[in-house]
């Protein structure tokens, strides 16, 4: 009997068994927050009711989209994208906007080995495969905790946080105030959309006006993410190309 062969076989089996069921699939949805309905006093009453009407429509419809985050722990890449549905006649443009809020209209890949997040956008006839360094925002970890779906989560806020309304007006590096709740007991650096690079899986994140939140988390086996085999461009290059598009 070839014990050596058997030994290797058992080892292999152990290896694969141990790594079975080690991938994750998280489902997310978006929702608006109360601040979304704050409108500047400069706006007249008639305009205000029109803006509020649009925002109510967003509130009513944003929940119809579901997003999945599939984590492939073997290649250390995750894919975040919307679950496609069919839009009601005439609503295509509105739906594209809803999907775009906080990201998710186009697939987003989190490539841990490259320390980058990639967005694969097919927009008005051109593909913009853009890379951003991960984490995309400067996070400041706080001690606040809460439970989400049974996991203990900690709050992280972007450096220019809501505690200190420091807003750089009209400059290109205008920073929005983001928040994110991450669970250290779940795979680190992954999260929905561009909310990545934190020491735990992000289950809830957003800005003052809306947030993306996890509905459920599943342990699955053999998630295979196909990372696009394309050359990527930087954010500055993408902005330059978009400016050329809308400028003329």
């Amino acid at each position, binding site marked *: 009997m070839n014990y050596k062969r058997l030994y290797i076989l058992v080892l292999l089996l152990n290896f694969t068994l141990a790594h079975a069921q080690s991938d994750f699939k998280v489902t997310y949805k978006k929702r608006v927050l109360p601040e979304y309905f704050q409108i500047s006093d400069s706006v007249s009453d008639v305009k205000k009711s029109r803006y509020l009407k649009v925002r109510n429509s967003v509130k009513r419809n944003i929940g119809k989209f579901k997003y999945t985050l599939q984590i492939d722990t073997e290649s250390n890449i995750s894919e975040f994208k919307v679950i496609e549905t*069919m839009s009601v006649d005439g609503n295509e443009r509105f739906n594209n906007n809803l999907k775009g809020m906080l990201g998710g209209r186009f697939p987003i890949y989190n490539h841990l080995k490259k320390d980058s997040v990639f967005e694969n956008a097919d927009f008005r006839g051109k593909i913009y495969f853009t890379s951003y360094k991960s984490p995309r925002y400067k996070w400041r970890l706080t001690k606040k905790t809460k439970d989400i779906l049974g996991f203990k989560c900690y709050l992280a806020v972007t450096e220019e946080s809501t505690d200190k309304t420091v807003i750089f*007006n009209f400059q290109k590096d205008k920073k929005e105030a983001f928040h994110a709740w991450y669970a250290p007991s779940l795979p680190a650096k992954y999260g929905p959309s561009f909310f990545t690079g934190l020491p735990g899986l992000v289950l809830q994140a957003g800005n003052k006006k809306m947030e993306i939140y996890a509905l459920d988390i599943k342990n699955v086996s053999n998630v295979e993410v196909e990372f696009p085999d394309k050359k990527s461009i930087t954010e500055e290059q993408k902005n330059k190309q978009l400016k050329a598009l809308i400028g003329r």
Partner: protein
Amino acid sequence: MNQLFKIFLLILIPLTSFPQTHELEGKIQDSLQNGIPNTNIIATPLDTDDEITFSISDQKGRYRLILSEHSRYLVEITHLGFKKISDTIQISEDQTQNFTLQESTESLEEVLIRQEMAVIVKEDTITYRTDQFKTGEERKLRDVLKKLPGVEVDREGNVKVNGKSVTKLMVDGKTFFTGDEKLGVNNIPADAVDEVEALDNYNDVAFLKGLEDSDKMALNIKLKDGKKKFAFGDVEAGAGIENRYLLHPKLFYYSPKTAVNLIGDFNNVGQKSFTVQDYLDFEGGFGLALEDPSTYFNLYSDEFAQFLREDEFTYSKNDFAAASLYQDLGRNFSLDAYSIFNKGKLRTKTVQDISYQSSSQADEFRNNTGQNDLLFSINKIKLRYDNMDNVDLRANTTIKYNDGESQSNLSSLVQNNEEFVNTNNQPRQLEFTQTLNLNTQFSYKHTTKAEITFKHSESNNNRLWDFNEALFTDIMPLVVEDDSFQLEQDHTTKLNNIKLNAKHYWVLADFHHIYPVAGFNYFNTEFNTLDRQILNDGSINSFEDAGFNNRLDFSLLDAYVGFQYKTQIDDLVLRPGLVVHNYNWNVAQFSNEIANENKMMLLPEFFAEYEFNSSKKIKLEYNRYSNFSKISQFANRLRLQSFNQLYRGNSELENQIYNRIRLNYRNFNMFRGLIYFINLSYSHREQSIRNLTEIDGIDQISTSIYTDLPENTYSISGNINKRISDYRLSFGTNFSFSDYSRIINNETLDYQNNNYGYNLKVQTRYDEWPNLEVGFRHSFSELSSENSTNEFMRITPFAILEYDFFEDFIFKFNYDYNYFENQSTNNINRFEIAESSLFYSKEDSAWGFEIQATNLFDVSFKRENSVNEFIVADRRIFLQPRTILFKLIYKL
């Protein structure tokens, strides 16, 4: 000597007391010596009445101030999140001074730089208190904006704040008239402006968000209390040789709840200052194009828009006035109304050489001159209700009225026999339409759209014909008294129509939707015609016994129900549908029922669309259509349509049915500036209402029949548009082939009509050089039957030039050339038309001057050729002679 010295001193003193200025610059940094961008540095002179100077630090935290020498300034430096620094400074030479800001532990929502500071920074808004920056000579908002730091205004009125373009202008939080920011920038009076707010403007398209909101913004102009009502506008007045005149005032009145726009145009040069674009703006402009595209595009082709495009006259005098009003009624209601009124006089002249397809008939030469006096008015009121909820309610009321009188003199010459017909036509029409639109979204699974329309219209047309020859002697029982005959014709139509349409959008599942639809369309019409002869003594010779005169009552109820089912497989969307119509109609003539029918109709439809990617799409559509044509075609008694056309309707007509299938492929690659599309379509008529004609010489007697005579049309069209740096090229082509049959003199004749052509256009978009749009169209058309073939070819090049030079001059030139060849007879004709103008106005001046010339080459007529089953006509349409006008424009 003393005197001279005094004068010398007097000259010197002002020279020496010119304040010397020096630069104070440096860096604003934090405790780590990092530059702090966008810090506000204000220097207020303490000893003099000099202006307050202001600087905002750049990306690296650097600032620069220009200060007067030996003057003391209070320099205050503030930034959100940091403690304010105040310092007194006096400089005698260029100096560098850095400031270090300490972080503040308080959280600040608002930073007040000074009690009555010139600038306030809050959240996403910069507010400028303009009084601090005005010097008193400013006339309009643009003059004030130019004085604000960081703000640039160009010649046309485009504004940039800190390098970012302003794309929206609001006044006291509301859109200003059409929303075009140049209108406000160039016209709001400077003394009414209190504060100017620059607001971050977020872009709708989330994908462009990070890019857009750092690049664009909105300006909100806050008006001073007591100055919230103002008027502005401009007046154009012109005069030319031969008593030509033009007066064109354009006035705007603005108040917090009301915005009124008045346009007047009084001229006798045939110019229409109120353009089709102005008409579309009155109707809602771009906003309407986005909300209700089909209504918007129907406006292009309605009668009023056609009138606005009318340019075939020898003389035209118009008194035109239009007013549009916007009123905020409070409690979520707003009102948009407009009123258009025109009184005009038109003179036309057309000469035609007509040859008849039937070889036995000799050619006819027709000369037609007309004088029209018309009066019309269109009034529309739109009420809109917007509340926070999911209900969108709109009500539109339209009232159209026109009244006119036209006198036309026609002479028809056939082989030495000349026939004269003089017609006096008096049309009058009143139309009232009320529409109600409702749009409700209950949840994302259920949305309902409903529309109900009510229309009432009345029209009357009274005609008096005077002619020198008896017409249709076999049919019309004319009494011969001498060699002139007078006929009176009276047509009256009354219509009441109620239409209801409801569609429900139901999301059954992610990829399965069902859209049920139901509604009805009810018509109740009256159509009366009267043809009779007026004898020399004024008595009447009735033709009623000869089969003339109609008193028709027609009612139709079209009730329908149906649905569309939408599904998606990968990137392919499919939407089949079916609608069932039930038609019920009733026709009575002189109160005797002549038709009473009931009919069911099944109208299937199919739609498929495949999206290759975000720029490429292919679409397939199939529809079966059914419609009832004009009710006047049911009027089965005789009536005279023109001096050589008699018509009798048919009470047994039914609905026309045709099928159409269309394929469309398009590629909209905005990035490469390339757009192209191809359309293919095929339509087949199953049942149609066609004319059955008997020709006798140049006289035609026709009736309508309901027939299944075959009729097929195939068409292909394509277009490519490409942008290459400063040029835009466009190339298009179209082909259409149709075969059909007509019954003439009891014989069924088959026809083939083919048309093809292509066009090419190049447009330039230079900033410095003249801008040119050049192109041409080359087309061929062919109409053939067993008896005859007619082939035409036409080339029409054109050029439009616009040149802005020496900053204040604008030169424009339009040229159209027309070459036409009848390839069957080898007749060629050509004509060319040109227009030009030169405009001068100094920037910031209220005055402008213009010389304008229309019909530069003094062309007498333009030529047109047309062909149908009966005739080939070569028409010469006479035009207004060359007109030169000198215009003066004053801006209020």
